[in-house]
C-alpha cells in the first residue's frame, strides 16, 4: 500500500494576538481523504488554527501548504476550503435552497448546474423536503445538515468543521457522528474537525492531534493516542486514567507507600525523578485469577452502574485518590461486590504507562 498523499501541510505556524500566543509553532500534515480531528481543551488554539486554515486569521509565522501551494495569505473567498461554523451561520433571510446555492452562485456557474448540484446534495443530506423552509423553521439537527450541505456543495479540497455537533443533544450527537463519517466517505473530501470532546474524536477521526496552550502534544491515530499517550496531560485528557504518583526506578515507579508499580520507564526519565504510573480502568482486573505483575488490595468506596459496565472507586494504599476500575456487567454478575467490600486488583506491566510528573 502506498503512503497516503499529504493534502495540507501546516509548517511551523504561529499566531499571537497582542501578547497572547494562541498557536505556537505547530507543524502537522493532513492527508488526502482523511478524517482529522483537532482536539484540546478550550483556549488550546484549535479554533485559531482552524480559522487560519479557513483564511479568517493570518499566521504571524509559518506556512500553510495546500497541495504544495502556500495559502496562508489567501483570502477566504479565494481558497478551496470551506468551513462549517459552530453556530452554523445560516443566512436567516434565505431558504434552505438559497443558502445551499449561495456558494455556487459565487462561482458563477450556469443555473442548470447549480440546480442539479444543489438537488444532489439536498438528497444526500436528506433535506429535499425542507428546501423551501427558512433556517428558523428547522430543528437543530436539520440546521446542522444545511450547514454541512452548504459547505459540501462547493466540493472543497478541505472541509473544516468547528464543533459541528456541539449544539446537538447527546443521542442525536451519537447518530450524527456516524452520519458525518458516512458522508465523508461518500463525498471523498478531507475533513478537519475541531472538538473539545475526546470521545467524539476517538469515534470519528482517522487521526487526531491533541493541542494544549497553542502547542501540539501528540498527533496519531485514536488508538495510538489512547493506548500510548505522549505525556501525562494527553493521558488524562483522553479517556479516564488512574495515576499513581511516585519516584522513577529502573523498572517502574515506587509509590508513596513503598510499593513498586512495574512498567516500562521512558528513557528520558532518570531514576529518582518524580514520575507517575498510569493505567486505564478497563485494564485493571478485579480478583485476578492469574498472576499479574501489579496487584493491590483496597476497599470499595463507591459504585456507579452504567448499564454496560460497573465503575468501582477503590481506596488503596497506592495513592491518595481512589483507583477507578471498570468491570463488565457480566463479570460483576459472576462475583457481585458492594460498597465497603475488600477487593483485590491486578494489572499487567504492559498496561502501565509511566510519565514525568
Amino acid at each position: 500500500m502506498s503512503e497516503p498523499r499529504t493534502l495540507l501541510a501546516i509548517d511551523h505556524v504561529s499566531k499571537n494576538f497582542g501578547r497572547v500566543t494562541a498557536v505556537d509553532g505547530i507543524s502537522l500534515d493532513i492527508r488526502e481523504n482523511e478524517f482529522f480531528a483537532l482536539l484540546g481543551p478550550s483556549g488550546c488554539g484549535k479554533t485559531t488554527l482552524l480559522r487560519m486554515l479557513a483564511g479568517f486569521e493570518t499566521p504571524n509565522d509559518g506556512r500553510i501548504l495546500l497541495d504544495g501551494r502556500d495559502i496562508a495569505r489567501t483570502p477566504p473567498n479565494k481558497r478551496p476550503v470551506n468551513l462549517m461554523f459552530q453556530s452554523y451561520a445560516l443566512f436567516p433571510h434565505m431558504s434552505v435552497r438559497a443558502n445551499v446555492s449561495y456558494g455556487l452562485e459565487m462561482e458563477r456557474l450556469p443555473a442548470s448546474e447549480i440546480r442539479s448540484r444543489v438537488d444532489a446534495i439536498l438528497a444526500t443530506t436528506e433535506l429535499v423536503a425542507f428546501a423551501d423552509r427558512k433556517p428558523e423553521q428547522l430543528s437543530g439537527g436539520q440546521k446542522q445538515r444545511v450547514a454541512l450541505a452548504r459547505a459540501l456543495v462547493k466540493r472543497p479540497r478541505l472541509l473544516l468543521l468547528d464543533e459541528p455537533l456541539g449544539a446537538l443533544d447527546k443521542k442525536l450527537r451519537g447518530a450524527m457522528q456516524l452520519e458525518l463519517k458516512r458522508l465523508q466517505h461518500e463525498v471523498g473530501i478531507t475533513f478537519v474537525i475541531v472538538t473539545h470532546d475526546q470521545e467524539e474524536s476517538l469515534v470519528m477521526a482517522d487521526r487526531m492531534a491533541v493541542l494544549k496552550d497553542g502547542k501540539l502534544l501528540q498527533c496519531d491515530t485514536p488508538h495510538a493516542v489512547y493506548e500510548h499517550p505522549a505525556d501525562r496531560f494527553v493521558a488524562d485528557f483522553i479517556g479516564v486514567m488512574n495515576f499513581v504518583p511516585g519516584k522513577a526506578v529502573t523498572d517502574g515507579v515506587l509509590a508513596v507507600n513503598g510499593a513498586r508499580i512495574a512498567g516500562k520507564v521512558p528513557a528520558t526519565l532518570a531514576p529518582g525523578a518524580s514520575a507517575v504510573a498510569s493505567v486505564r480502568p478497563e485494564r485493571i482486573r478485579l480478583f485476578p485469577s492469574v498472576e499479574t505483575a501489579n496487584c493491590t488490595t483496597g476497599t470499595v468506596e463507591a459504585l456507579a452502574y452504567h448499564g454496560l459496565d460497573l465503575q468501582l472507586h477503590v481506596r488503596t494504599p497506592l495513592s491518595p485518590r481512589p483507583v477507578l476500575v471498570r468491570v463488565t456487567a457480566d463479570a460483576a454478575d459472576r462475583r457481585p461486590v458492594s460498597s465497603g467490600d475488600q477487593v483485590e486488583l491486578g494489572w499487567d506491566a504492559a498496561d502501565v504507562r509511566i510519565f514525568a510528573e
Partner: protein
Amino acid sequence: MAPALVWLTALMVVPCALVLALAFFRRGIYGGIEYTFTLENFGLVFDPLYAGIFLKSARIAGTATLIAVVIGYAAAYAISAAPCRLQPVLLFFAVLPFWSNYLIRTYAWIVLLNREGLITQLLRWFGYTGEPPSMLYTEGAVIAGLVYNYLPFVILACYAPLSRLNPELAEASRDLGASAITTFRRVILPLTVPGIAAGAVFVFVLSIGNFVTPALLGGGRFQMIGNLVYDQFLTANDWPFGAALAMMLIAIMLLVLMAQALAADRASGRAIEASGGADG
C-alpha cells in the same frame, strides 16, 4: 393599560378630534370661526398652490431622508465595526448634539452658511476671492438642517440591527466565495433593512411636518407644509383651513407609518409562523 388609554385619549385623541372638527367649519369674515358645516377647506387643500407645497415638502423630506440614511447607515456600520469598548463612546458622540436645543442647533447652521459665515471664511482662507456663495435660505440649507438634526435617529436605528448581526454570517459568506461587496449586498444589507426603514420613517415624518428649520434656514421665501399650517393659525387667522392642512399632514404621516408597520408585521409574522412550524 388603563392609564395609557387615559393618557392617549386626553393628549392625542381629544386634541386631534378638536382640530378635525375645526376643519369642517367656515372661517369668519374677520377671522374667528363660523360654526357652519363645509367641505371647502379640504377642497382648498387640493388647490394646485397648496398641493404643490405638499409635494415640495415631500420632496425635501424625501431628499433629507435619503441623505440621512446613507450617512447614518455608514456611521452606524463604522461604530458597529469599532472595538467593543469604543462603541458606547462613539454612540455617545453621535447623540451628543441632542443635548443642545433644536433652535440653537439650527441657528448654528446660520452661522455656518451665512454669506460671511464660517464656510465662506474657510473658502477665503484657501484663497477664494469671488462672490460669497449663497447657501443660506436655499432648499439645500433646509435639507442640510433636517439631515443634521435627525441623523442621530438613523444612526441609533441602524446600529441596533448591525450590532446584533452575527459576525459569522459575513464570514460564512466570504467562506462560500463572496467578495466583501457581495457579502454586504446579499447578507448584511438585507438583514439590517428593518433598522433602515425605522430610521427613514422617523426622519421623513419629522421632516415633512417641520416648520422651524424651513423658517430659519429657508428664509421667508421658503415654505413647507409646517410653515403653512403655522401661518394659517397665527398670521392669516384661518383656523379651519389650518386645521384641514394639519389633518392632511397627519394623514400622510399615518400612511407612511402604517406602511412601515405593515411591512414590519409581515416580517415578524413570518418569524412567528416559522417558530410555530419548527415545533410541529
